[in-house]
């Protein structure tokens, strides 16, 4: 179960993006890479893991992560919150 990937919405604080990054996606990607560092696929896969980037009403990404990766990412600076993807229903 620890290797099962689920979707998490990762909320980021855009304001603390280091100046070294030219755009937010690059920064989000690097954050993800550091959370995946224990995974052999880290470098190549980090961008593939991102299924959405959010820039207007919400800032951050939705990415496919294991529970451990999500926990690790949550502790990263600039990560505001992690929301597990949730199912909604029509009313």
């Amino acid at each position, binding site marked *: 179960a620890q290797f099962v990937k689920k979707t998490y919405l990762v909320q980021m604080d*855009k304001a603390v993006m280091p100046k070294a990054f030219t755009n937010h996606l690059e920064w989000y990607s690097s954050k993800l890479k550091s959370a995946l560092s224990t995974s052999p696929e880290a470098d190549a896969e980090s961008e593939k893991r991102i299924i*959405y980037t*959010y820039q*207007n*009403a919400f800032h951050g990404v939705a990415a496919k992560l294991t529970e451990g990766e999500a926990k690790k990412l949550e502790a990263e600076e600039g990560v*505001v919150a992690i929301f597990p993807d949730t*199912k*909604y*229903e*029509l009313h």
Partner: protein
Amino acid sequence: TTRSPAFLGLQPEKAPNMWSEKLSGRDVIVGVLDTGIWPESESFKDVSMGPVPAHWKGACEIGTGFTKSHCNKKVVGARVFYHGYEAAIGRINEQKEYKSPRDQDGHGTHTAATVGGSPVLGANLLGYANGTARGMAPGARIAAYKVCWVGGCFSSDIVSAIDKAVADGVDILSISLGGGVSSYYRDSLSVAAFGAMEKGVFVSCSAGNAGPDPASLTNVSPWITTVGASTMDRDFPAEVKLGNGKIVTGVSLYKGQSVLSIEKQYPLVYLGSNSSRVDPRSMCLEGTMDPKVVSGKIVICDRGLSPRVQKGNVVRSAGGVGMILTNTEANGEELVADCHLLPAVAIGEKEGKDLKSYVLSGKSATATLAFKGTRLGIRPSPVVAAFSSRGPNFLSLEILKPDLVAPGVNILAAWSEAIGPSGLKVDNRREKFNILSGTSMSCPHVSGVAAFLKARHPEWSPAAIKSALMTTAYVLDNTKKTLTDASTAKPSSPYDHGSGHIDPIRAVDPGLVYDIEPQDYFEFLCTQNLTPTQLQVFAKFSNRSCKHSLASPGDLNYPAISSIFTQKTATSFSRPVIVHRTVTNVGPADSKYQVVISPFEGASVKVEPETLNFTKEHQKLSYKITFTPRVRQTSPEFGSLVWKDGLHTVRSPIVITW
């Protein structure tokens, strides 16, 4: 929507000045997060519409059965969001489902048309509810954001749609879906809606269909307008004529070839029993019908566990000639009509009990069914729907929810031609309109009316629009009595109807509004015992911090008032509760308002000052309400605070909880 505009006083002929070209909502764009859109529907024709508003930056995404040409000056945009869905469920089977904005389900087409459908003459479902169908803001533009697929809707897709819709330039978001209730900072839809509100977007959401259970609401954040459902003055009567001569009245939308003879009587069967033990056969669940038992008979089915139309199909498949669908305690006497595949009549709980007693009495019970078409002028109406989710607001008692109710029972609107009106796969009928019930249907009524208001008051904030809708809502039905609750047939309370039933024409000129800035909502969150990390979720630009401007959550400048007395000891209660409000004059510059407070048993309520003298437009004046405990009450007390200037009545519901 062949009836709701008239029921809401929105007919162009009744208020022509409200419908001038300039004011009919032409430059307002409503984003509808749902199952997509059926663009060929007449409700989405753009005849005589002006150019697409300059602020629109959205797109018309193409895919299976959907090209750029399917967008027009009415449907200005259409997008799909499925990455989260595919990550959770697996790849969408494009042979079975449109991987495009095209609506396979019908729900999204129905809600979008309710918001802003163009007028369509002679709209009906199998002859029922015939009339001119039109959205609440027929001049508004629609942008369809498809976030729900055959297997459900996922928050990663919903948040992406909200995020994109804000960038696209929508003015209003209509969201007829929900999940469970979780804390504000754990609810990604609430967080994204907060972001949309910060950008000036009005967000309305359905309250949920988990009523009449208390505290069953979803989408309760104060920056969201939470919409419950109520009936209109229209129904679709049908009769059950029993062999003993008795006639039971119900409702039905059945029209088909297999009409039962009213001259003949058919054997009647109920597969449940008198015992309190629930028998799955009594609910006509899949796999519970024995054709030998039900063939050629009319079957009584109890509501519950499976969709209503599916029960009808179970009976039909087993050879039954008709169905009588009986309400249970959860539904009371509220009758919801469905487009069944076999002759079927829905009846109330009480009549249902009598009917089952008749069948179980041992005599050879018989019946026939007769369908009476459409009836208007039903009294009383509106009535709060039994299924409409109820307060109190479990997250914050100080914020009264739902905010208001709107038509959500037996609503006719455009439908997808990819599916029959029952929504069942076996239903081969194709109809341009369908009749549905749910808070999904009431939410777009409010979104459309919000668009109608936004067109007339482009400068109003989302909170001002919400305030106008709430403070002008009415709480007396068309018999001049307090609104009733369909689940009990007793008067409904603000936990059921919020501020009341929307009154669009009055909302255009509310006199005063309770405005709320994004920072005020953040200050409300600062009162919710959140940690700094949890608060960060709503302060993502890092430029929001708690200024502690609210003494308590009840101090948020909300158009409804909820006062909580907490018990200090077994015999003593908290000191007086004081809340503050600030109203903005959006009426004539020189206006003098006088307050009227309803009496309460358990507390004395004092408002200071009792008069508000405005001398300028947009002037803000504040007042203080002091609730002093008197006699402890065993249940919440409800009342109201009204500001009157002789022209306007600005009403806020009050709840006092002990």
